[in-house]
């Protein structure tokens, strides 16, 4: 069993038009910049993938990563909790022009919906958003005297995430707070594609240190010199 692939292009080859794609990261930490840019490269060369629904905590920053996907016109809709950033132009312009959709989800509900998607839980109740505009149209129920909102699982056709170590079976570790949504997304997507800083042999990661077990991972590509979105952003890079 060897889930590693040689190139980013091969790793993302089956991402198709109209898919829902979860992209790991919170702001720049954990953002799989190289894989995102590989999607943009493919779109520029072939016109695909387009009409994508992207699930991420944010909606891009500056002119790189998800913001660059939006700029390129690949994204039909964002599902996120916080479509603001230091430089939110890409999303803001398209949103105010009515050219991109938005499903705004409270951050904890977003995380829990993704977790539910991976765990086979089609719906759950949360106190979050009860009585607010974001609960409008959702079923509510009372438990033990308190009101809760019913939320549905969130799944994706593909997840694109960044890991620190990956063994060839797909077991992953993350670096510091770059972990954030990625372990949840890996489990909630039909296909999980990983860029890892280093690919190692099975057994090289302590079984106790594995954060995402390989069962949730389909393909891994090694990007040893991965860039940090925040650093690119501060350097004014546009992709």
């Amino acid at each position: 069993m060897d889930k590693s692939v040689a190139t980013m292009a091969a790793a993302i080859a089956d991402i198709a038009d109209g898919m829902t794609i979860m992209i790991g990261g919170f702001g720049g930490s954990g953002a799989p910049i190289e894989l995102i840019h590989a999607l943009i490269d493919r779109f520029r060369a072939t016109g695909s993938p387009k009409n994508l629904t992207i699930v991420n905590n944010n909606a891009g920053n500056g002119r790189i990563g998800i913001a660059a996907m939006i700029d390129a016109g690949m994204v039909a809709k964002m599902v996120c909790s916080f479509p603001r950033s230091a430089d939110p132009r890409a999303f803001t312009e398209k949103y105010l022009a009515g050219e991109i959709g938005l499903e705004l989800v409270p951050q904890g509900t977003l995380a829990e919906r993704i977790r539910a998607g991976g765990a086979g839980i089609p719906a759950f109740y949360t106190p979050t958003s009860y009585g607010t505009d974001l609960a409008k149209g959702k079923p509510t129920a009372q438990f033990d005297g308190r009101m809760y909102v019913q939320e549905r699982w969130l799944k994706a056709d593909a997840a694109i995430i960044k890991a620190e170590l990956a063994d060839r079976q797909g077991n992953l570790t993350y670096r510091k707070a770059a972990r954030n949504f990625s372990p949840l997304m890996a489990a909630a997507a039909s296909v999980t594609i990983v860029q890892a800083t280093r690919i190692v042999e099975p057994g090289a990661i302590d079984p106790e240190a594995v954060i995402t077990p390989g069962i949730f991972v389909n393909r891994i590509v090694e990007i040893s010199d991965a860039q940090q979105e925040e650093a690119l952003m501060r350097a004014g890079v546009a992709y």
Partner: protein
Amino acid sequence: MMHKLSNAQIAWRAAQDITDGAYVNLGIGFPEMVAKFQPPDRQAIFHTENGILNFGESPPEGEEDWDLINAGKKAVTLKPGASFFHHADSFAMVRGGHLDVAILGAYEVAETGDLANWSTGPKGVPAVGGAMDLVHGARRVAVITDHVTRDGKPKLVKNCTLPLTGVACVSRVYTSLAVIDIEGGRFVLREKLPGLSLDDLQAVTGAQLVIGGAVGDLIVPEV
């Protein structure tokens, strides 16, 4: 008495359908035997409910680590690429549809795919473990079982009489006499022992066997 496969032979046959790279949960007891018969050119990764992926055989007696056990509480070992996780993550793998196949034992399997394998009725102490989760989790839920009970009654039935483990959950049954798929609420015969007539097989089966194409010979080596 009708010729039939031994439990080991049933397990061998089930093992042949496990593809390279599959994630597999084997129910405790008889199904655990399937692991022994994995074709050597294919790698399956075994999951146990109590929080291990990619465990291996039992260690030699005296070398057990009792923090390293499977769902049947037997001591196991780890293979390279193993991982540990807590019970909620373990059943997220199960319920979330991440396992390729679960192989379970059965008291009864109905042509609807209903399975009864956890309770023989109201007497004694009931115990369910992970069975009800496993039947709704794996992409393919297979059963291995003798074709009939000890007193010769069909285990493949029209409707289960014992308390259900799950509704419409089994997709394939490997028995001591045949390999049968469950499709559209019918038992579809895929393989039977070469010397066994269809009539004789039907006679020990509690619901109609449907022929959905070529019926293969169920040929299993001595194991």
